[in-house]
């Protein structure tokens, strides 16, 4: 027997479609909309600050939600769902970095390795502070940006950050302290505290 062609599959009636998607996805549309409204803005901010690239942040955001929906995690609390979402996002950031590093070896410098980073034009209010943070973040390593954001913007505990990033708990603490120190020094204009 031949498999159902896509055209047939796409013309399933509404009820069948809804049932099919419910089987495939972790949540229904209404729950997804509520979850998205709650999480998309901070998630985008995380992806943007960690990658420095607004376009990439948007791509990764969509991929993160797709994988979240497909993963069909067991029923979980809001906090667990959020952790799960951030774990997917962090893995995607790591995969992206690996691919980019791979390209650096196969492409001449200045092509694929070109800086795709861009800024989101800061609005007048708090603009200079954001510009400073943006330029300070550019001097940090990607992993440092991630763990700093998870710790101080998202308020994750160290143990949770270790879980999200796959860094050993024992290594995370010194890593985080060094990153914090480094960022604070850059923000203070390089003066040693």
């Amino acid at each position, binding site marked *: 027997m031949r498999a159902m062609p*896509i055209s047939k*599959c*796409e013309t399933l009636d509404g009820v069948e479609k809804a049932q099919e998607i419910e089987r495939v996805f972790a949540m229904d549309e209404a729950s997804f*909309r509520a979850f998205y409204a709650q999480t998309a803005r901070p998630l985008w901010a995380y992806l943007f600050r960690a990658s420095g690239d607004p376009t990439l942040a*948007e791509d990764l955001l969509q991929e993160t939600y*797709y994988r979240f929906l497909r993963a069909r995690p067991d029923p979980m609390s809001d906090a667990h769902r959020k952790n799960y979402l951030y774990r997917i996002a962090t893995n995607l950031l790591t995969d992206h970095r690996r691919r980019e590093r791979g390209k650096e070896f196969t492409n001449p410098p200045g092509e694929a390795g070109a800086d795709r980073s861009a800024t*989101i034009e*800061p609005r007048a209010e708090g603009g200079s502070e954001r510009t400073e943070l943006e330029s300070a973040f550019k001097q940090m390593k990607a992993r440092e940006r991630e763990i700093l954001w998870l710790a101080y913007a998202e308020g994750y505990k160290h143990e949770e950050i270790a879980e999200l990033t796959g860094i050993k708990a024992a290594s995370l603490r010194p890593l985080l302290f060094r990153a914090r120190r480094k960022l604070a020094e850059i923000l203070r204009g390089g003066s040693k505290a």
Partner: protein
Amino acid sequence: MKMHCEKEEEVIRARAEGLLADNGEPASEGGAALREHVAACPICQEALFLAELFERDQRALGAQAPLPEADLVWWKAQLRARREAVRRAEAPVVFAEKAAWVTGALSAAGLAAWQWPAIRGWLALIASAPILGPHSEPLAALFVAGLVSTLVLAGVSLYLIWSEK
């Protein structure tokens, strides 16, 4: 300067919960103790400085984020999930088709090996006689069988090509 303070996580959590806010209200017992600690701890001060800075940044970025609509994300995910489901469903069929071709080829080779003397005789006959002689019944049968299997194979191939489209 020491690198690490045991209370840092607690301080960050308390701040997120509003326990450290200096809003003129009397602080809870835990809040007051933490405030006192922060006042004397440069590590926690630094952590709080970053937490406040990041919070402002996060809020400003969130307000400007070029986010796709939830409906669009949902719709794209649906479409992609369905495409992947179809691809997964088709995978065994594609495998079965390949397996059928391999089995068919092996059977034909086996048949040829088993019937090799007849085939050799037939070839010899064709080679020696331009016109079929009186003892040509097996040859004729073989010829017909070959023709039939060629036609069957051609039909199956056409069906497969058509059904792929």
